[in-house]
């Protein structure tokens, strides 16, 4: 029977934290069943250290939101056009914003859970932008409004029914 090492494959793998520094050394091993391993390269395995340290949290889970007095706007499923009830609310919001010249707001775009993550982030962006655009036509300076889409990531209501979904399809005002 031929005793031959056909190949020595050394595969170094990543992902697991730990640290660098691979030491190479040649080893000779005799194993219990009469097999002799010829000189083979062994890369020393390093111990796995811990996991990544927590990074600074930038987005707070539930930021304390300053009351704006502005009315949120609600949308139909998979739509980003402002409905008639939304137009009314936005006209009132516009009056408040034009009267308070120093007020700056973030318009958050939100979606219900019935969709896919990436599409919903885009949809939330469209909703918030639609609100911003409308308010601009009503005399609110665009520079006072910032848009952030949360997609379906920050629902206002956690149930899985239409009442909840409607509540989650909205543009929400937060003081900036």
């Amino acid at each position, binding site marked *: *029977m*031929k*005793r*031959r*090492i*056909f*190949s020595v*494959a*050394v*595969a*170094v*793998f*990543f*992902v*697991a*934290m*730990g*640290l*660098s520094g*691979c030491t190479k050394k040649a080893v000779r091993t005799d*194993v*219990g*069943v009469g*097999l002799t391993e010829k000189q*083979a*390269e*062994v*890369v*020393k*395995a*390093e*111990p*796995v250290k811990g996991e*990544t*340290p*927590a*990074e*600074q*949290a*930038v*987005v707070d*889970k539930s930021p304390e939101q300053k009351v704006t007095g502005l009315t949120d706007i609600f949308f139909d499923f*998979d739509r980003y056009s402002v409905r008639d009830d939304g137009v009314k609310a936005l006209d009132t919001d516009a009056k408040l914003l034009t009267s308070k010249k120093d007020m700056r707001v973030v318009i958050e775009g939100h979606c219900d859970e*019935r*969709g*896919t*993550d*990436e*599409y919903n*982030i*885009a*949809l939330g*962006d*469209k909703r918030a*932008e639609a609100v911003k655009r409308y308010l601009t036509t009503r005399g609110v300076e665009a520079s006072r409004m910032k*848009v*952030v*889409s*949360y997609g379906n*990531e920050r629902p206002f209501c956690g149930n899985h029914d239409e009442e909840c979904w409607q509540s989650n399809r909205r543009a929400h005002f937060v003081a900036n």
Partner: protein
Amino acid sequence: MRLFISVLVILAVFLSGEARAKVYIDLSAPAVERIPIAVQEFKDLGGSIPPETLKALRDEIMDTLKSDLVFSGIFKIVDKEAHIEDPKAGLTEAETNFKDWRTSGADTLIKAGFTAEKDRVTVEIRFFDCFKEKQIVGKKYIGSPNSPRRLMHYFADQLYEELTGRKGIFTSRILFVSGKTGNKEIYISDYDGKNVIQLTRNRSINLSPQWSPDGKKILYISYKKGFPGLYMLDLRTGEDRAVSNKPGINIGGRFSPDGNKIALTLSGEKSPELHVIDLNTGEDRKLTDNYGIDVSPTWSPDGKRIAFVSDTSGNPHIFVVDLGTASVKRLTFDGKYNSSPSWSPDGKLIAFSRSDSGKFNIWVMRANGSGATQLTFSGSNRNPSWSPDGRYIIYSSSSGGASSLFIMQSDGTGARKITTGVGNETSPAWSPYLQ
């Protein structure tokens, strides 16, 4: 931040008596019965760890191997109770009583011995054909005791390739998202859900992880600066950098097959449009220009086309853009909501999720949009991602509020839940081959 290099090392040596088999099992043949395989209890060949640890290690590596063998679709495990060969019999072909194994109902057999030390585990393992009474594959692996499972995944890959002529997927990994800590963070695990590592810890929202073609980097969406930005994490060095952080949304990044470009959605001050940015030159090419939503790109394996989701026809549908001519073609016409397209590794198919009622199912169609076929039928199923060999699709499935990961064969059969131990997993992404 200090880097993660992980170092798991594996050394494979062919053991004596190697019979260089050609293709042993033809996967393209019509479905054949699973081959009975006996896995003899791995022998302790000496070492320096306490007996309890030894037993746990043996159980873990044997379970890993059996699970890979079953997953392969080729084998079924012969019940241990049926083994009749004297347990003292040796590990080599000459020392094996093949008649006993045939009597046990085993057409094939795996025998292995292992040595466990504090800093490394050595496993020598052999695969025999009990009828030919021959060793077909023999290997020896030396690796870190921190992830002994990977030793068996390496063997499974090599056995699979030896028998079928095709690369195995057992050393591949998956990325996924879980909100289990209270925030959605990105995780990585082996293909079977084990060996989990949490990759992000920024306590914001992290979404949609994607692999680089060489498996060394990932792209992901993060709200760590307060809005959706696209980031790239180097899995070896731990270097994490912003790829795109413009005002508006920066989402859905996917590496081109050559790794030099990234397709993504940017909204800027206008509307979410698809772009391709060149990582070397910084060049930014806008692919779509409309009032609607254009998201979730997936590259054809030849890098010439990108399929994506657009609502320009009223509802979310899948379109494809030819990067040479910039012409756009619509691929789906049915379903109220078509999303998360994923191009198969051979370029022939596109998997996607479709909904008519709010519940999604996984579908596949030809890359030209024809032949759409539904693959899942219960729960709500999203985000399909192909195994590197194209034989399997991983996806997330939810019923009620909780979500978990499932792997099925690409024809929709054999769906099985992948247990990571993290819980509430979504958005899986299957790695390319990692060797």
